Every structure is written in C-alpha cells, then in structure tokens.
C-alpha cells in the first residue's frame, strides 16, 4: 500500500489515486524494524485521508500524508497533554534522542486540538518535517518519528512527554515503520450482542500523593556478626508504599532518607556516626518495581551521606502505588563498645 514510486501521478494528479499495495520494494525490507521503546504511549500510523490504520509492514512514500493515531480502534482518542505544555512539534530524530529537541534531525510545528492541551492526528509525514535536515533522513537509516509536548519556547519536553515510533528508511525516502505491541483480546467463542451505553463524565481531578509507613514503626536489626572483624548488623524496615493519585498533573516524586547518629541505650555519650549505616533501596518483597520508578544508588556503610536520595518517579508518570523497602547495614567502628544502639531513620516523600 501507498508505495508511490511505481506509479507517477499523471497530469495534475487529479487523476485517480496513485496508491498501490506492496510491501517489499524497500531495500531493508528483510530487516525487522526495531520495536518502540521509550515512547510515552503508542503511535499507530494512520492514513491522513480517512484515519484508517496503515497495515503493518507497509512501505510508505516519504511524502505520503500520514498521521499518528492514539488508538486505531477509536478515532476520537487523543493524546493527552500536560498543563505545562505550550507547544507541540512533530519530529524525526536519531533513535535514543527523541526527548532531546536539540538533537532532532528534522521537525515541524504542530498544534493542540483546539481549546485543549491535547493532540489529535498530528501529521507525521516525514516529508512534512520541513525544519532541520530532512534530506539526512531521506538518505536512509534508522530513525524515530513522532511528536512531543514542549515548553520553554520549544526548548524542552513538557510533562506530556514524547510519543514516537521507529522507522527504517531506504535511500531515497521509502520507509517502513514499527508498530507498538498490542494485546488483542480473543474474540468471544460465539454470538454477540450490541449494548448501547451512556455515561456522563466529569473532569478528572488530581488525587493525592501519600506515603504509607511500614506496619512496624521500629526495626530491630538482626544479630550482629563479625565481618572483617567489625560488628555488622543488617535488616529491612519492611514494606512502605508511595501512593500517587495525581492522574492529571503527573508531576512525579522523590524519596529521600536521612538518619540520626546511633546512641547507646545505656550510655548516651557513646554513639555511632550515622555515616556507618548503609541504606539500599529495594522493591518490597514479593513486588516488582513499577516501570518509571528509579532506585537511587545505595549508600554504603562507612561512607553514607545524609540526607540521601532513595527513589524517584519521573515527571509525566503517575504510578498509583509503589511498594518499597530499605535494606539497612550498620557497621560499627572498631572502637565502638558493645551494646544496643538506637537511631531514627526518616523517609521523606516530595512531589517534583
């Protein structure tokens, strides 16, 4: 479909459409197109004529008008933007540089759906990316194509993020595109019926950002053992949870930890410096760390800093619930009298 080279539009192009089915004239056709990784959401390639989804594996002319579809089964679907977005641009970039507008190879101004911060059917025709170096793309290679919600006069990507898919371009401009992996529900075994549904919706509102403490407010580290002849105690504080219900603003969050010096329970003049408590962020036992949440590097006993970053969720993500745990390691210095020491670990949650 849509490969234009074979038929040249005759006089004025007012003749019938020069569209033919076909998939194989692209030199790299045998090379699978890379899957899309890192896009804020799926980009399905649609025909600008009518919004119909273009078949997987099709070879497209560089200038054939195509649009990005948020949901090929629902043409009313839009790409939801963010409040901080002030503009929209479509782009072609080297793969991996999608979120860096300064690294885009070619781009063009697009726009919001009138009266909203959302985008619908952005034109992602390669030949329509009229700024930058379109010819570099037309020369061939592996690229990403998509659009971005931008802020700061197009300098930076806004919270709405970047949506793209990968394309593989043959010398001259014909190209193939990657299709997001989708899960298609199996058809019903037999029979069907139509049900008219009606619902009145209201504007989405941000929920709250909460931190739920572990079930037990006191953590007793395990029995000390000698490691390299130093008293070493380990333990976990137990599962605690970040709940983020801000479905509209998607601001993201940061978790930090800080700890006080350890004090001997029998003699408060004897202490263990807080730098000797190692803190490592981990997903809570039995849970998987949600995509979009990043754990900070562990603080190592002996050189731990306070306060220290623990974990974060990037802006643009709204992960309903993240279960975490902190693995602690206390290494008492050699001159520390034996005894029971106590301290307080504070875990702080802040919105980005």
């Amino acid at each position: 479909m849509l490969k234009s080279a074979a038929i040249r539009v005759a006089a004025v192009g007012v003749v019938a459409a020069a569209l033919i089915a076909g998939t194989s004239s692209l030199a790299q056709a045998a090379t699978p197109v890379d899957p899309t990784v890192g896009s804020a959401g799926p980009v399905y390639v649609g025909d600008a004529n009518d919004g119909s989804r273009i078949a997987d594996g099709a070879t497209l002319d560089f200038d054939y008008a195509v649009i990005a579809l948020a949901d090929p089964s629902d043409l009313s679907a839009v790409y939801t933007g963010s409040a901080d977005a002030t503009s929209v641009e479509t782009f072609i970039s080297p793969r991996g540089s999608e979120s860096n507008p300064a690294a885009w190879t070619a781009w063009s101004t697009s726009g919001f759906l009138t009266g909203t911060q959302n985008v619908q059917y952005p034109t992602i025709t390669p030949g329509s990316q009229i700024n930058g170096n379109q010819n570099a793309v037309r020369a061939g290679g592996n690229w990403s194509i998509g659009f971005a919600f931008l802020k700061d006069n197009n300098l930076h990507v806004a919270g709405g993020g970047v949506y793209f898919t990968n394309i593989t371009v043959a010398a001259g401009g014909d190209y193939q595109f990657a299709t997001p992996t989708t899960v298609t529900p199996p058809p019903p075994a037999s029979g069907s019926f139509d049900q008219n549904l009606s619902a009145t919706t209201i504007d989405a509102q941000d929920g709250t950002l909460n931190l739920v403490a572990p079930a037990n407010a006191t953590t007793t580290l395990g029995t000390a053992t000698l490691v390299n002849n130093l008293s070493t105690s380990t333990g976990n504080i137990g599962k605690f949870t970040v709940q983020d219900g801000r479905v509209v603003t998607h601001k993201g969050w940061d978790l930090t930890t800080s700890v006080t010096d350890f004090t001997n329970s029998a003699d408060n003049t004897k202490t263990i410096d807080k730098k000797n408590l190692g803190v490592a962020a981990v997903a809570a036992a039995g849970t998987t760390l949600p995509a979009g949440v990043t754990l900070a590097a562990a603080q190592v006993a002996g050189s731990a800093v306070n306060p220290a970053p623990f974990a974060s969720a990037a802006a643009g993500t709204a992960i309903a619930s993240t279960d975490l745990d902190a693995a602690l390691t206390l290494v008492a210095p050699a001159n520390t009298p034996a005894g029971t020491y106590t301290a307080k670990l504070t875990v702080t949650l802040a919105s980005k």
Partner: protein
Amino acid sequence: MKIKKIAAIGAAIGVVVAGIAFAAPANAEPVSNSYVLVGSDTLQDSVNALTNGTSVGGASLRVTAGGASVGSFDAFGSSSIQTKPGGPYFGRPSGSGAGVTALRASINGSPTTYSGNAAVPAKVIGGQVDIARSSSGPGANANSAGKLVYVPYARDAVAYAYNGSSADLGALSKAQLKQIYESNTPVTIGGTVVHPVIPQGSSGTRSFFLSSIGVTTLGSTVNDVNNTTPENDASVLPADSIIPFSAASWIAQSNGVTGISTIGSTGVKLGSPDGVAPFTGTTTLAANSAFYGSSYGRDTYLVVEFARVDSSSATYDKKLADLVDSTKAQSLTNFGTFSSTSGAVKAKFGFLAPSSTAPIRAYATI
C-alpha cells in the same frame, strides 16, 4: 484584511501623486521557501490557513511542498511584493484575473513584463509565481490544448452583502439584481433607493456575479470607486448599498477563522438571492448546499502551468504536481472530510467540494 486593504488604496494613490520610489514596500512579507501563490481574495484566507498551518479542521496540519513551506500572498496589502529570495518587487496581483496574468508573465519571463497596479512599474517576473488563485473558471479561454490548467479547488457561491433594510434588500431576485446593476437611473426597492457597489475589475467574484445575474454592461449608477474596491469586505458598504460577496468568505469571517473579520459591527448582512439563504446556522455558519448548487454556485480553481504538472513533460515538477493533487490528503486541492485533510479546513472556511474534480486546460498561448 480590512486594515491592509484601506492602507493599500491610500498608499497606491499617494505614490502616484508623488511619483516616488517603490522599492521599499510598506509591508514587507517574507519570501517563499518554495512555491508562490497569488491572486484571488476569495481563496486567500483558506489558502493562507493551509500553507501557514491551522487546526480549524480539528487536526493540526500544514500544506508543504517537498520539505519546504509554501508562500501565499494576499490580494491586498502593500502595493508591491517580493515573492522569492532575491527576486524583483512587482505589483501585487489583486484578484483572480491579476493572479492569472501574473502567472502567465512568470511563465514567459523576459521580455514580458507584469504590472500589478499603477503604483509599481512593470517588471520582468520570470519564475516568481507558480500558482494563481482563481475564484472563477477560464471561461472563453478554455482550450483542450491550453498551456495552463485550472485545477478545481473548492465550491463557493456568490451572494450579495447589503447595508440597509432587510425587508427591502434581504432577498432580491435575479431580475432585481440585474436591474440594479444595469440601470442608469437609481433603482428603488420597497422604500430603499439601492446604491450598487462593485469590486475592482480583476475580481473573479465581480465577473462571476455579473455573469450569474446576466449583466454584461454596468449601469452608470454602479459605484466602483476608481476600480479599487476590494472584494469580500463588508466595511466598504455605505448605507442602502449592496455588493457581490463570496458566501464562503462571509461564512469564514463570521466563524472567526480568518485573520480579520470585515463584518464586525457594521450591521452589514448577507442577502438571500432569489430567497435562498447562502448559509445555515446562526452562531457557527455552514454552507447551504441548496444555494451552492444553484446558478450562484461556482467552482474555484488553482491555476498552474500544465507542462509542470504533466508527468510526460520534460519540465514535470512532482512537488508542484503533488501540491495540486486532490487525491493527496494534505494537498491544496484536496477535499476530504476527515479532520487531517485539507478539505476539512476548507469546509470551515465556508467551501464545499467542487462539483467536478476534472482540471480544465486554458490559454492556447501564454
């Protein structure tokens, strides 16, 4: 629209009287990165939207050509324009006829010269114009072996705007309109002595309107203000007067999709020739297909050199051909309905699909 038109008229007169230089235009416009359109006022707002980018149709789209933006120059504004990098300043083509004339001069090149208006001396403009916007067809210039080709752009209709009593002027018949524009004595309708106004001579709207009401010779009561009256400008109408007006332009201005509305608070209304309203709706207007399908309806065109869009020609230019290929979703001549098509934009500007998509060749010689 309105402000620039008034300034342009003033500037033109001033320059003639003073006889001063013209090299520095009052309002310099950017030059085009690729192709250039000039001509019809009726088509300029929708073409501007397409070439400059718009989301009035829903999706955001911009018509481009081979990786470059396209330049569309208004029919009115500064007296001269420079359309391409390093090119000459030449008289701004103000209307469909002037646009086609400029295109022909551009094709011919030296020694043919073009003079858009009296304020600007004739210039050689070879290669400076690629497409002419025309709100009328080629008429008697149609020729099956013609050097130009008129590619249907959209369907418009021509009604009349009036400033006065709705009871008297709101629904004039074709016979009444013919009488008003042919008479050498004032015509009275009801209690109104009607003052007919007509756009300047190269206006396609003017020629189509007169043709559709059967007028070949204007009566002496028709006011053409030194042949400089802009078309589709409601602000030029004195009391108890009427003027031919593009229905599409009226709808576009009323819908707020044009840069400037000349209608505003003028109190000017669009008449219903023979009692058929040109539009439907009250807040957001839409073309009334019954009126557009009548004898007041007209197909509008983009005019290009045939050899440049003929795939068998040695001078075939695919980028230009694509630009006027109606089968391409985001070409200038597309008339799709889906919101990412150019047609969806044109609909917001009061146009319907052309009655025929067949191009018409014209002008046996350039």
